[in-house]
């Protein structure tokens, strides 16, 4: 597989936590700098703003913030870079982006309509995910 825009620059081993941490910040910075082109590729102009995407990316990174093993961090970083490359190469499609990053973990059904107000909690949890 050829990574067109951003070659996976993560060498296999970070020496310590500090180096892994700086790599994470570099990755975050490069992801944020590519947000405008992502919005352009997938026509997400009216759906989401740059700062929302930035917060989503930061939340994903923050989910793994408790990890202390530098090798695990390297592996997560590799997966993150692979994901970013896939997105930039247009290997994903618009509904992938919207489902995974715009709507994210909130679920696809929001309580916006008036007729949804009386819905039971069971149904709402059912819509949200398979695992309660």
């Amino acid at each position, binding site marked *: 597989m050829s990574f067109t825009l951003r070659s996976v620059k993560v060498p296999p081993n970070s020496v310590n936590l500090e180096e892994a941490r700086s790599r994470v*910040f570099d990755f*975050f910075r490069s992801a*944020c*700098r590519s947000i405008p082109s992502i919005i352009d590729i997938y026509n997400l102009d009216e759906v989401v703003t740059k700062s929302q995407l930035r*917060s989503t990316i*930061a939340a994903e990174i*923050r989910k793994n*913030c408790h990890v202390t093993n530098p090798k695990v961090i390297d592996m997560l970083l590799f997966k993150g870079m692979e994901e970013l490359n896939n997105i930039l190469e247009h290997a994903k499609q618009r509904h992938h982006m919207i489902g995974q990053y715009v709507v994210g973990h909130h679920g696809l059904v929001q309580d916006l309509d008036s007729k949804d107000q009386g819905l039971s909690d069971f149904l709402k949890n059912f819509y949200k995910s398979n695992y309660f």
Partner: protein
Amino acid sequence: MAATTGASVFISSRLTMRVSSLKLASISTQGRNTLSFRLRPVPARLRVSCAAKPETVEKVCEIVKKQLALPDDSKVTGESKFAALGADSLDTVEIVMGLEEEFGISVEEESAQSIATVQDAADLIEKLINKTDA
């Protein structure tokens, strides 16, 4: 009596005038040299030290507040540190990226590491804006 006092007054006044004129002359010759040199560099120095404009600091505070989801009445000034406002290091990087987008600048790695307060960020922004204009 009036005449003598008047004469004494005149004499003293003449003397004082002469003395004062002498002093004035010395001051003026010195003053021309020193005052003129002092007037030009001092305003330039003042401009460089307090570099960030208030509206830049204001915009930075707005972005910080929005990013950290602080209520509107919390005080964010030039001297408030990001760590004191409850931002961890990822938040700091995110704030810097938000500032990059807002002001259209591009911040280097090392400069981003050195940002600790709101004033640092505003100064860095000013420097980058001036560099791109110049």
